[in-house]
């Protein structure tokens, strides 16, 4: 536990997130197994409030970062599909949103490392839809 890096060291400050208009965007994987696998990496590296950080990474629409910019970015353009939801719904469902590292990255914090939490988050993220910016084979 002592070797975990406190995520608090990497929180952005002074950023305004409008929970009613900002969108939380998460690319594949969007399965219970996939989310838990990704969450496991975070909890092996970071802590939050003195405990292992149970979270997945997502991107949030902010000033200068609209949905098209996020989906067509170098990382998300590799995803065939994604899910998107208003930030307020994520928070209302009991998940914290932490502005970690560089914008527009956010950490979606789960209460614990369980399939139930992963399923709940998947439910909140909603329908998985095709990414119109996904790079496809040309020939």
């Amino acid at each position: 536990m002592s070797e975990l890096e406190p995520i608090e060291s990497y929180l952005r400050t002074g950023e305004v997130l409008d929970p009613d208009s900002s969108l939380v965007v998460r690319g594949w994987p969007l399965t219970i197994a996939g989310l838990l696998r990704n969450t496991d990496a975070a909890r092996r590296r970071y802590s939050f409030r003195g405990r292992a950080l149970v979270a997945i990474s997502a991107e949030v629409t902010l000033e200068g970062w609209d949905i098209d910019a996020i989906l067509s970015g170098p990382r998300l353009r590799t995803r065939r599909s994604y899910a998107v939801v208003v930030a307020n719904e994520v928070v209302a469902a009991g998940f914290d949103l932490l502005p970690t590292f560089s914008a527009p990255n956010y950490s979606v914090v789960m209460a614990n490392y369980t399939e139930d939490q992963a399923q709940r988050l998947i439910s909140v993220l909603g329908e998985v839809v095709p990414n119109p910016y996904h790079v496809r084979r040309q020939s």
Partner: protein
Amino acid sequence: MSEQANVAVTLPADVNQVDESGYVWAFLGDSDEPARVAPGAIIVAGDAEEPFLARVVDVVDGPGDDSIVHLDVLGVPDETIDELRHAGLLPT
């Protein structure tokens, strides 16, 4: 990737997950073939269902005995295949 069952990902990683470096990161210990994960190497990362191509930026000390690998995402494998075919370096 319809050929998912045959995909051997060199380094499992979450393309959504970055750290303070700005790069995607993953644990070297999660790789079945860590010798292939060296700075400068181009590897297949992600998961078998949706792998991505990445260049290994660096490998740095991580928690415990593990190391952290930073990845610069290059795209999807199909892009590279297309380019190599276009250049005549792969049969069409």
